[in-house]
């Protein structure tokens, strides 16, 4: 009954991958080694010191899902994390979600993999798991392990949150260079969860708006501007330790989170049509950078630091309400974020306008110092806020990487 899966690349690339690999399961959709010959590493290991999908060079596509745990049984929750870990590890290797496979099983049983990724390479898939504040209520005996900073994000000015697109007990961030691979991952993890956890909301992102490595170009958001120029990059080891990874002494209640991070998610709708009617000069003044190259209005190229004291005529070159000024680390005790957001378009609204914007994701060491103050400043004063409506919001604690033989977040339950 076994039908070996052969990747498209495998078919084109010849025998190396197909030959000498025993069994359909081991063939996978493609292998990391095979893919790397073509276009950089296309498969990332699931296990490691930190979870993949944070400093991993930002892939092009996102499917993000928040879940409500539907069981009150702690053992069931742990079994879900075990099952998720196994499935995630398989899928990031371009293998099926289940042990059997999409077409290899009993014809009388629903397949344990849904099949839409047959023939697709790993596509750089990373699956990153997080725990929301609500997981630490009285259901699972985790209340005394809740990190102090893991609270429902406060209300910010201009928040118009849809509760159905906010918060959650668990989150799954699936990123890949092929949208079908990212959707396949979330779909199969949701299936595995039925009876233990249910999707609360999910969000597709079709294009990255950040670069997390110096090897990547800076992409553009739907305002048409480069986004994430000053991001913390994977190569900045010291900055990661200072701004992204939770340190050993950060929170006595949560030693399980050391080496992990906090994931701040914000669904930011843009009023696209109104924005598009703004004169180019105004757009650049709102952002504080040029639209073309992305250099600061105080002069220089994309990666030159803005000079906030520079004056053009009688006004500051970078206006006092320009986005780049208000969120700059200089204004926030040097706090930086690792941003990993994605452009989204969820079709159009009732009036024919794009239901579109930025699904903002930032990884920070402490949201109380690295996210909330910056978000407050932006919401109060940023010129861009005129064109933004925040419709979803969530905070998750992202445990450190998963060691061999462990499930994700195991230390939390130890």
């Amino acid at each position, binding site marked *: 009954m076994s039908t070996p899966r052969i990747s498209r690349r495998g078919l084109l690339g010849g025998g190396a991958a197909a030959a000498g690999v025993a069994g359909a399961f081991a063939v996978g959709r493609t292998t990391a080694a095979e893919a790397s010959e073509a276009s950089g590493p296309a498969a990332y290991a699931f296990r490691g010191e930190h979870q993949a999908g944070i400093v991993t060079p930002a892939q092009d596509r996102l499917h993000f899902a928040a879940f*409500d745990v*539907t069981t009150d049984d702690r053992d069931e929750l742990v079994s879900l994390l075990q099952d998720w870990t196994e499935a995630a590890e398989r899928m990031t290797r371009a293998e099926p979600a289940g042990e059997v496979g999409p077409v290899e099983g*009993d014809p*009388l*049983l*629903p397949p344990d993999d849904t099949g839409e990724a047959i023939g697709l390479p790993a596509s750089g898939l990373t699956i990153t798991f997080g725990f929301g504040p609500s997981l630490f209520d009285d259901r699972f005996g985790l209340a005394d392990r809740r990190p102090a900073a893991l609270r429902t994000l406060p209300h910010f000015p201009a928040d118009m949150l849809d509760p*159905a697109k906010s918060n959650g007990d668990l989150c799954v961030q699936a990123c890949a260079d092929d949208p079908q691979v990212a959707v396949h991952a979330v779909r199969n993890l949701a*299936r595995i969860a*039925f*009876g*233990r956890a*249910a999707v609360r909301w999910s969000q597709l992102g079709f294009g990255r708006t950040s670069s997390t490595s110096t090897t990547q170009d800076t992409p553009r958001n739907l305002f048409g501007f480069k986004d994430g120029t000053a991001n913390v990059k994977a190569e900045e080891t010291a900055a990661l330790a200072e701004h992204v990874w939770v340190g050993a002494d950060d929170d006595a209640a949560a030693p399980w989170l050391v080496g992990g991070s906090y994931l701040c998610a914000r669904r930011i709708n843009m009023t696209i049509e109104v924005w598009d009617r703004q004169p180019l000069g105004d757009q650049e003044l709102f952002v504080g950078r040029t639209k073309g190259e992305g250099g600061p209005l105080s002069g220089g190229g994309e990666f030159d630091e803005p000079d906030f004291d520079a004056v053009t005529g009688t006004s500051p070159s970078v206006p006092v309400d320009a986005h780049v000024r208000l969120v700059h680390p200089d204004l926030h005790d040097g706090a930086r974020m690792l941003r990993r957001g994605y452009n989204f378009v969820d079709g159009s609204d009732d009036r024919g306008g794009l239901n579109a914007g930025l699904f903002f994701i930032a990884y920070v060491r402490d949201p109380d110092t690295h996210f909330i103050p910056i978000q407050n400043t932006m919401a109060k004063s940023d010129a861009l806020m005129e064109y933004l409506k925040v419709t979803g919001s969530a905070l998750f604690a992202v445990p450190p990487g998963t060691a061999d033989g462990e499930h994700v977040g195991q230390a939390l339950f130890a």
Partner: protein
Amino acid sequence: MKRILITAAGLLVAAPVLAACGTESTEQAEAGRAFTVESTDDACTVSGDEAPAGTLTFEVSNKGSDVTEFYLLGKDGLRILGEVENIGADSSNTLTVNAPAGEYFASCKPGMKGEGIRSAFTVTESEEGEEQLSASDQEMVDEALAGYKLYVRDQSAQLLEKTQEFVDLYKAGDHDDAARVLYPVARTHWERIETVAESFGDLDPKMDLREADLEPGQEWTGWHKIEKDLWPADAVKYQALTPEERAFYADDLLANTETLDEKIQDLDYTIDQLANGSRGLLEEVAVGKVTGEEEFWSHTDLWDFQANVDGARVAFDGVKPIVEKNDPELAETLTTRFDELQTLLDAQREGDGFKLYTDLTPEEVKGLSNAVDALAEPLGSLTAAVV
């Protein structure tokens, strides 16, 4: 026609009442397992209400004026472990049935109509009974199939009876309130066996098509046509049906229900049909009921929801002994998930029925949907566990 359901053990047990003091082994096996039943027009008197597991006999005497039936029902009051029917006035017949430990109902049905006159009956654990119950795989399959056939026939009979009452009320023209009360009750019997009814491809669209599913030029008949006429509040510029039209659609529905009932009498099932039927009924819930699409005008979707779950559960309970043998973990999961879904449904009961779908909060709908997903996912593995 006298028909006795001979169950797997197929024992012809001479039935001495209360042969409890016997010392020989055969008599021990019979000890406390033989009962008499007296069925009258308004009573159903069983000589006991508890027995050890094993082969039970019920000698049923009809002291009433009408033909009667006797059933041993599962604790849901739906699943039929065994029945004897067509017991004429002043005659008697014996039901022999193999019953594992559990809660049951004994039920007489004088006039062979309605829910019957029921009383609780308990079967307790018993060591020698377990030996009697260690049926072979084929015996378990046969029992499941026989029980399901009885169940479908019973529901079909009740559907016909209630449909007759319903169309009478509807045609009368001045009993619409009563017709509206009866509508979801009568449809319960349809929804419990919906997957069987759907196997008659020509009947189902005539009886259960929703307006949204009509093809251009197709005539709309059946339950939902009448539903819209009884609940026109949400309809735009609705033209109420004339008395003649009412009579036409009512008679058409009744005639199709009679045809369905005739066809069902001869229907036999296979074990995979049983398992697939259970899964299919949950799919009906997931696609049409939990979304509030089925009862677009009356919003009585939760009655249908419950009825689909009833049917799925009866089919599962029938094959459960086989699943417990082949995949005990699956049997346990399904039992738990059925119970969890039922708990949520019970929370929405109001009076003899349920809340209207439109009165549910989005959170309640999501909770029900989650429970349906939680059950339907493992239910997909049922067929492979029974064949």
